[in-house]
């Protein structure tokens, strides 16, 4: 079924009409224009003027590019809505699935005292801060109420391995239910690995459970960030990584960094550490404004601009080492490249519109309360419980009908937000009302003062500069991350837009 275009669009005498687009000025008189479908082009001032004033020469290459990338259309020739709708649908395909990421906080107990911890933590002894067996059973019911054909069940804490019996129960319950449901299920445990033993490893191997751990950099940096009584956090984590790889292979464990002000001074050391440890991806994520991290922000923190400087240096170094034969991708960069260079969304829950919180993720806290995202749960530490959706005993439908979801949705669609709606990066970006609520006290906030906007716009602007103005080496490395192939396999860089 097609859709008509009887919209009274002014066409003057030109053969083409405009389609919606946004633009942003770069240096050197280059202007990035982005279409509603996410396609993009660089033009100059004169070309932008011609475009809007219907003066683009139909015989020129610019006209062909504008037509092909859905900046203009020819009403007498072709109605582009169906093909644009197909692209738009691909980009928003995450909407159709319902919550696909289910995070279970099985305990708050932890043996670390990380100063940037974003979550509450409880002492090691006792089970008062563990998820009950009954709540775990209800959580499994909630998970399967989501229509998503692909489900990720992620265990977090505190230190989730301290409540391994609960993890075991949940995995077994999920697998039993899935004999009927037949979904594609991935289990992940986010852990320091300090409490990994053979029993846990055997279970993980049997059920193909993935591990996600933290490696902040070389030992001295990691141990400085993550104090434990034996001052050997790094060594114990590495022991765990080796054990998992020996049993389950290299890909069974991934690592993330958390960056403190100290970390920002050592981008190359952090990258080198990941290469030495044979990881193939690194996540250079900044401190978030939640939990203990927010309380310690004066001492540990840094501005968004300082983080961006670090990111650019780290990225430059990553491109160098990749061009020399190592494969180490930066995961946030990779997902942005997916958003920019493909018609698909990366699906990353923190960078999508409509927002990922609640619609894409649910968090089941140890006490049975349910939250729309991990960040919303972390705000408990700051005394903010207003983002609670309900209890794990409530049905999924009840949880998603919570007034909290309505508030989040009203601030979680960037196409309707001031600032965002005019931004050229909109097709690749998202809304994060929970971060805005945490930082500005308002789920919309003022976008001009938004760290979220500043951070994402700065990174995307930098990536576009690399893609458009950068050399072949940079392009090939970035494409190798996108396609997950070695640089040597990327012989051409494709169009530069």
């Amino acid at each position: 079924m097609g859709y008509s275009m009887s919209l009274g669009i002014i066409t003057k005498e030109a053969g083409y009409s405009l389609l919606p687009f946004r633009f942003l000025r770069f240096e050197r008189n280059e202007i990035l224009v982005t279409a509603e479908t996410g396609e993009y082009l660089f033009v100059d001032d004169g070309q932008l003027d011609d475009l809007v004033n219907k003066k683009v020469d139909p015989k020129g290459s610019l006209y062909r590019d504008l037509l092909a990338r859905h900046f203009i259309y020819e009403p007498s020739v072709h109605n582009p809505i169906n093909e644009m709708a197909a692209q738009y649908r691909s980009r928003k395909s995450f909407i159709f699935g319902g919550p696909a990421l289910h995070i279970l906080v099985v305990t708050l107990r932890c043996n670390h005292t990380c100063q940037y911890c974003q979550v509450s933590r409880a002492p090691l002894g006792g089970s008062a801060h563990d998820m009950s067996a009954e709540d775990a059973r209800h959580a499994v019911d909630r998970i399967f109420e989501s229509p998503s054909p692909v489900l990720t069940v992620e265990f977090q804490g505190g230190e989730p391995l301290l409540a391994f019996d609960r993890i075991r129960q949940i995995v077994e319950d999920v697998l039993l239910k899935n004999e009927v449901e037949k979904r594609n299920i991935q289990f992940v445990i986010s852990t320091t690995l300090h409490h990994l033993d053979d029993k846990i490893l055997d279970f993980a191997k049997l059920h193909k459970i993935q591990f996600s751990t933290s490696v902040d950099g070389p030992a001295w940096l990691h141990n400085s960030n993550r104090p434990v009584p034996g001052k050997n956090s790094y060594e114990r984590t590495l022991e765990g990584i080796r054990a998992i790889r020996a049993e389950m292979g290299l890909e069974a464990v991934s690592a993330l960094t958390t960056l403190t002000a100290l970390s920002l001074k050592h981008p190359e050391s952090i990258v080198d550490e990941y290469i030495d440890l044979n990881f193939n991806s690194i996540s250079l994520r900044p401190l978030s404004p939640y939990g203990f991290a927010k309380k310690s922000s004066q001492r540990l923190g840094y501005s968004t601009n300082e983080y961006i400087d670090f990111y650019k240096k780290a990225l430059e170094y990553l491109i160098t080492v990749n061009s020399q034969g190592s494969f180490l991708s930066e995961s946030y960069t990779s997902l942005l490249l997916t958003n920019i260079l493909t018609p698909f969304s990366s699906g990353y829950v923190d960078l999508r519109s409509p927002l990922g919180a609640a619609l894409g993720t649910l968090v089941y806290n140890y006490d049975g309360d349910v939250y729309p995202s991990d960040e919303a749960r972390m705000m408990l530490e700051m005394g903010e419980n207003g983002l609670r959706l309900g209890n794990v005993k409530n049905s999924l439908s009840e949880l998603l009908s919570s007034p909290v979801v309505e508030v989040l949705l009203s601030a979680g669609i960037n196409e309707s937000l001031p600032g965002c709606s005019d931004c050229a990066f909109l097709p690749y970006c998202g809304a994060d009302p929970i971060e805005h609520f945490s930082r500005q006290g308002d789920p919309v906030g003022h976008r001009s003062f938004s760290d979220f906007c500043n951070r994402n716009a700065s990174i995307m602007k930098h990536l576009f500069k690399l893609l458009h103005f950068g050399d072949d080496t940079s392009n090939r490395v970035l494409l190798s991350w996108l396609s997950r192939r070695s640089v040597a396999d990327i012989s051409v860089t494709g169009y530069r837009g």
Partner: protein
Amino acid sequence: MSKPFTLIVDSEIYPLRVVQRAAYALASEFTILIKSGDHNFELEIVPFKISSDKEDISPDAVKNKVITELNDFVVRDRVQQETSGIRELLAKAALRECGV
């Protein structure tokens, strides 16, 4: 904080919605007070001085920046007017199953 200066713009060329959006976009660099005049808007612009080691921005630089932003929002407004309804049509076509 640097001294304010005033820019007067023709309200037929720069309607209020354009001036407001430009002021919003520049909010991290300037505070802009919009006053309605006779067929014009008077923009009282106060640049922020972000840190003590940064030079005060010159009045010409402020003027250039604000005018560029205003002109860009005129273009955006025009594109929006000319393509009015297409975004909604696209969303409906793409997301029909969601009840859009």
